[in-house]
């Protein structure tokens, strides 16, 4: 029931933020952006932790999800709330073309996903009939407002909070399940687990599809919040990198880490650093990231929860001798 407690805490925190800031569209917008990154960070961490595959190109799924949802809602007239999950499915289907690279390890897989992201970006630029080409799509239908009499800022905010919590619960569930156990065992030795009859390839593929689906959903959500898409924006390297940095910063081996990391990094950067150092605040982000890696490689969450006993379920820290 730890999960239920966690969900209640999250909902409570989210609700208090909404209560404090509900008239301030700017701050709400910042939270929406931060939570979008948090969602992708979670999806990325899921693939990294459970699938054992670090990806440098999650923008591939984000962009596919964004375009799919935009096209469904704008050209095919689907309701936005239906288009978003459908776009997630499209993103998952797009990840099927990545099945051949699943057997690659480490840096090779990471880079291959990046290559896919670039290929998708160029295809989106060329397929101008469908995607609007380089000009992209303007005036994408927005997140519906007026639901329960709430402004569209609050609706978007609630939606993204819901999506993040849902994903976190999903992630946690999978982690604790037998599949999760198998996946973690797999990371120590794929050969051994496969000898024991664990369907290694199928499990990895499932994680890839899940991660792609989740990322696609957040990409779709973002398209309807911003109302505009271009290939350079939808498949921008930022969507691969910021979530990764956020997850690592927050602690990517935990479920709450990526969420905390994303909110911390995004809000700190936009609200504090940007006002302190207007012309170079991204440098501060770089310095923070380096400092975090050097002094607390497990991220922010372990620092916060250091009071608790640190018997972690993920004991697979690979040490470098000497």
């Amino acid at each position, binding site marked *: 029931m730890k999960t239920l407690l966690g969900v209640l805490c999250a909902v409570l925190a989210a609700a208090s933020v909404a209560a404090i800031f509900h008239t*301030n569209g*700017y701050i709400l917008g910042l939270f929406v*952006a931060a939570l979008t990154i948090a969602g992708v960070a979670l999806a990325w961490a899921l693939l990294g932790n459970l699938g054992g595959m670090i990806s440098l190109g999650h923008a591939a799924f984000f962009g596919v999800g964004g375009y799919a949802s935009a096209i469904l809602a704008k050209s095919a007239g689907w309701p936005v709330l239906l288009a978003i999950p459908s776009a997630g499915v499209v993103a998952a289907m797009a990840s099927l073309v990545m099945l051949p690279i699943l057997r690659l390890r480490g840096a090779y897989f990471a880079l291959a996903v990046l290559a896919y992201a670039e290929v998708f970006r160029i295809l989106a630029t060329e397929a101008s009939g469908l995607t609007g080409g380089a000009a992209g799509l*303007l005036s994408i239908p927005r997140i519906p407002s007026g639901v329960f009499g709430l402004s569209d800022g609050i609706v978007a905010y609630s939606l993204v909070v819901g999506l993040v919590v849902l994903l976190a619960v999903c992630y946690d569930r999978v982690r604790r399940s037998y599949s999760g156990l198998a996946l973690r065992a797999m990371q120590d030795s794929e050969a051994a687990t496969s000898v024991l009859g664990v369907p290694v390839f199928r499990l990895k593929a499932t994680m890839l599809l899940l991660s792609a689906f989740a990322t696609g959903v957040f990409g779709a959500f973002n398209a309807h919040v911003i109302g505009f898409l271009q290939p350079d924006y939808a498949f921008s390297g930022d969507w691969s990198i910021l979530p990764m940095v956020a997850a690592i910063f927050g602690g990517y081996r935990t479920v709450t880490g990526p969420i905390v990391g994303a909110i911390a990094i995004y809000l700190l950067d936009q*609200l504090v650093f940007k006002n302190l150092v*207007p012309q170079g605040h991204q440098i501060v982000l770089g310095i923070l990231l380096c400092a975090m890696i050097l002094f607390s490689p497990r991220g922010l969450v372990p620092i*916060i929860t250091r009071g608790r006993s640190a018997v972690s379920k993920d004991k697979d820290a690979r040490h470098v001798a000497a």
Partner: protein
Amino acid sequence: MKRRLAFAVAALATMFWAAQSSAKEFNVGVHMPLTGGLARVGISMWQGIQIAANLFNDAEGGHNSVKLSIVDDESNPAKAVAAVEQMAPNVDAFTGGFGSNLVGPASETADRLGKAYVTGGAVADEIVARGLKGFFRVNNNQGYAKAIDGLTTDLGVKSLSILYSTKDATSNLAQQVAALAKKHSVNVTMHPFDSNTSDFKPLVNKIKLQDHPQMIMMSGYENDYVGILRAAQILKPDVKMMVGVYGLATEQMNKDFHDLVQNVAGTAVLSYPPIFKTDDGKKFAESFKAKFGKYPDYNAVYGYVAAQMLFAALAKVPNGDASLASLAAELRKTDAETLLGHVRFDERGDNPDFIQRIAQHQGDQLVLISPANAATGQVKLPGRSW
């Protein structure tokens, strides 16, 4: 658990404090890319806007005044939207914005929040096709295309090769020029290239061996021009004129790549050294030089004129009512001669009278060669540096 909650509350409180801002009267919000890839352009445009505000306040002498707030959108659409949302409660209207990808979402947000948006930084076609009642712009790709087309006609060019970067504005402009050129039976060949391209020799060689054009148009940005011109200097295609668009006919390019750009033409607003024939222009140039220590470039002019139109309308709204409907109605009455030529706004918020000019690098100067009524000198042929 308690500690986590305490930490969260403390964090939230800090952020709440940081977000407080104070409200002023007759305020205008500006969002520009002051960092990131578009920084140089954004800073220049912002400088033009500031001069517009200073000159307006001086002229009004305390009767009306304009106060600017600026937020850096970091060349990022989400941050442009956030900037507009941040400033909207405290401003009456928006100006600034550079790049259709930033202006698009930002102006939609402004519209949603009931604020007018006047810009000199969004030239792509789709920007005015959205039915926004409070959106206005003083320049557009059509004006650029008309300028290039005018040059084609002036020089009697019958075959044109267009190299264009596959980015939004550059490919949009390329398509428009091609459409205009075909209307007077000019033979057009199109060659898209990826913005990462650094070696243009294969492409220029293809054009040289297959197309034999009389004029080559380069629709790209500074790094593309350097690459293309370098390749052309080595391959030496026999063209009558090389013409580029954004960012080619500038003082910066003349200084940094002097020998490379000799006799090459590009779209421009001003000659260099800039010659301001009107009082408005002279005041602008002098104030700019006094405050920033250099001559204004074309981006500064765009920022200046857009802001100028907005402030003029703000001064004239009945009862100081700067709501969207009232301000938009006032802006639609605009009918002014500006540094960009004639400005008026149609129902879509576009300025149909905008025609860009063409300047040619001649020695250390930029000479306006087209259209005839704006020319400051004669064209030098062949328009190439080899």
